[in-house]
């Protein structure tokens, strides 16, 4: 190895993994991790840290890996991140830490994400848990939602001595980590449940089956249950549809429904909750969620097409997910867009009418906007269509909380530097504020709000 190429990582063979729900990436061994860690130049001015939304001291933990002090490496990561085994698996590292790595200028960036994952997995396998010796300060804080934003915020507040309770609407903790991201990318029992346990070990209490805005409101939590501050990390849960004919037919699902049935309710294990096992599935959209839905459908036995209105370069999904999807046999129909879903007399999907697109001038997002090519429509047979067009925030909380502003898109208005909303002592972060984004950005917002809440108590 000349130092320009990263240590390759073992993965399940594409043909094998396309038929099971086991994790795709097998992770580094100790030897491989140490070898990869040796590629880190330990830069004086580590640009990778600036690329990390939670500012993990990356060179420091990698040096510890190099020296085989894995426990110390875990302690360094834990100072900044409550969910390293999750982030090592699902962060878009190529745009963050690894995108900044000096090694990447002439060759491969250091595999920071894979090393983070190695350290977190090693710690779990060796029974090492994060701990906090901070004295309790007696202040009660409620955290709404047990997804990445909520867990990060709760973990940091507990380390500062706060008495934190997380309220989760679903029956399981983890938010998008359990209902959205599939098992083959993020094992639920082994990884997610273990990291949630770690947060609980810091003293955080979790109450499931509580829908804030329905079971109890934020105002009631503060007035009747003694919570002095609240963090809202409720995510962006409402699925979008296209508004094209045939969208209400049998066989048309939101990616949320499809993934929730499979991931949260474990339909792939043939338990009580059913899932439609299509023979030919069309997934509309090009983000990470679309890749997850497509690769799930593939594992349930279908031929799968991804239909996306822009081109390969514009695919919003992580490069690794696109690469994995292609390896497994997902077919990409790019620069194409559905105009109608075709149905039979029982209202069951029989196909989809698609129009071809070309790219025009850059739009407001800076991406070249797709334009329909007149007369290019064609029909594709299929029995299932999965709409993966993004999500918007759920109004359940904002509509039941007095004095908290939302913007035009229904997102909660919060200050970027502190997470403070327009309501006193109420903070927010993650997808509920930004609209659908990534796990790590939500975690970053959760951490920012924890600091903001701590400041609030110091000033009151």
């Amino acid at each position, binding site marked *: 190895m000349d130092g320009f190429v990263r240590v390759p990582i073992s993965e399940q063979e594409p043909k094998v993994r396309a038929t099971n729900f086991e994790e795709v990436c097998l992770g580094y061994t100790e030897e491989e991790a140490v070898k990869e860690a040796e590629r880190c130049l330990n830069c004086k001015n580590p640009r990778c840290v600036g690329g990390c939304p939670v500012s993990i001291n990356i060179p420091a933990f990698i040096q510890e890996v190099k020296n085989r002090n894995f426990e110390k490496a875990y302690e360094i990561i834990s100072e900044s991140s409550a969910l390293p085994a999750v982030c090592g698996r699902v962060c878009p590292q190529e745009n963050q830490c690894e995108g900044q790595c000096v090694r990447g200028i002439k060759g491969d960036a250091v595999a920071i994400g894979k090393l983070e994952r190695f350290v977190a997995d090693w710690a779990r396998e060796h029974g090492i848990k994060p701990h906090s010796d901070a004295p309790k300060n007696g202040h009660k804080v409620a955290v709404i939602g047990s997804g990445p934003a909520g867990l990060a915020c709760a973990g940091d507040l507990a380390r500062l001595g706060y008495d934190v309770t997380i309220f989760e*609407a*679903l*029956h399981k903790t983890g938010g998008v980590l359990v*209902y959205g991201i599939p098992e083959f990318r993020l094992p639920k029992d082994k990884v997610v449940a273990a990291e949630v346990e770690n947060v609980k070990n810091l003293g955080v209490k979790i109450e*499931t*089956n*509580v*829908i804030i805005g*329905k*079971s*109890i409101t934020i105002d009631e939590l503060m007035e009747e249950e003694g919570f002095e501050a609240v963090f809202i990390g409720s995510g962006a*849960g*409402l*699925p979008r*549809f296209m508004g094209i004919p045939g969208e*209400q037919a*049998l*066989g048309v*699902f*939101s990616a*949320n*429904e499809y993934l*929730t*049935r499979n991931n949260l*309710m*474990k339909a792939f294990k043939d*338990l*009580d*909750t*059913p899932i*439609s096992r299509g023979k030919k599935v069309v997934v509309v959209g090009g983000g990470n969620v679309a890749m997850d839905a497509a690769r799930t459908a593939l594992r349930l036995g279908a031929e799968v097409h991804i239909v996306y209105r822009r081109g390969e370069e514009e695919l919003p999904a992580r490069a690794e997910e696109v690469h994995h999807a292609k390896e497994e046999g997902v077919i990409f129909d790019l620069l194409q867009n559905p105009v109608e879903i075709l149905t039979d007399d*029982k*209202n069951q999907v029989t196909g989809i009418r698609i129009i071809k697109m070309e790219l025009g001038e850059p739009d407001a997002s800076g991406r070249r906007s797709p334009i329909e090519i007149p007369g290019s429509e064609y029909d594709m047979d299929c029995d299932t269509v999965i709409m993966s067009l993004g999500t918007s925030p*759920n*109004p*359940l909380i904002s509509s039941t909380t007095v004095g908290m502003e939302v913007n035009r898109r229904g997102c909660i208005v919060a200050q970027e530097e502190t997470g403070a909303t327009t309501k006193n002592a109420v903070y927010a972060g993650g997808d509920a504020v930004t609209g659908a984004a990534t796990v790590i950005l939500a975690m970053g917002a959760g951490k920012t709000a924890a600091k903001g809440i701590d400041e609030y108590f110091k000033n009151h």
Partner: protein
Amino acid sequence: MYPILRKEVLADKIILMDVKAPRVSHSCLPGQFIIAKIDEDGERIPLTICDYDREKETVTIVVQTIGASTERMALLEEGDSFEDFVGPLGQPSELCMEENLEETKKLNIVFIAGGLGTAPVYPQVKWLHEHGVDATVIMGSRTKDLLFYIDEMKAVAKEVYVTTDDGTYGFHGMGTNQLQALVDEGKHYDRCVAIGPMIMMKFVCKLTKELEIPTIVSMNPIMVDGTGMCGACRLIVDNQVKFACVDGPEFDGHLVDFDLAMARMAQYKTEEGRKKLELEEGDTHHGGCGHCGGDK
């Protein structure tokens, strides 16, 4: 865990349970529903709230065994617990809101409950009675063995008319026939609330449209999370997509696309399940198979 404090068999395959659920019992209102899950591997099952007791912190649910999950639920006994019990979900009934009470008092209201629909109708009639509004109730089922809560309903309603499709109890006919008969007698209603199988609500709405009685229905489509996340429960109401779990479950019945809603109920039905339903329901097959459109 949410323990079952009382279990009672109300009628053939219809079971009532009082479940200890403090948060739900404190905040629920008539018209809302809950989601219950038996254990780790169970399905999330939406169930209507039949009654609640804020002091005892219990919520009363009524379950009809119609599939694997509800059959499993029926095996639970007093002292057993649900692993998960979440709610209240959906919007409360507009007729049962303090802020609308003055308007509601001016109305002559008729409820039509079909089959299990008696369960969600009861707390509404009870709430109205406690707030000085007495409503008329027509409660019907296919046959005598499926009737329940007649005495409870009589205690809170102005008058109760019971119907059976096969004539084994009360008025021989459907709820729609009874309503027509009452109107023919000269009774006048300003508002109708119809809750029951979709096919029954569809035909009630057809009639009340002719009779020009504004009608509210409570929709019970397939759901997963019940908080607006999955979109499985989407309906077309007034040509717009609505989610029954967060926008409903109650809607203006004259604006609901029932044919689409009934077709969507068939999504996860198996051939085997459809045949079983048709066999059990025989001549009175109500379209619950989601396959035949219910038009017989």
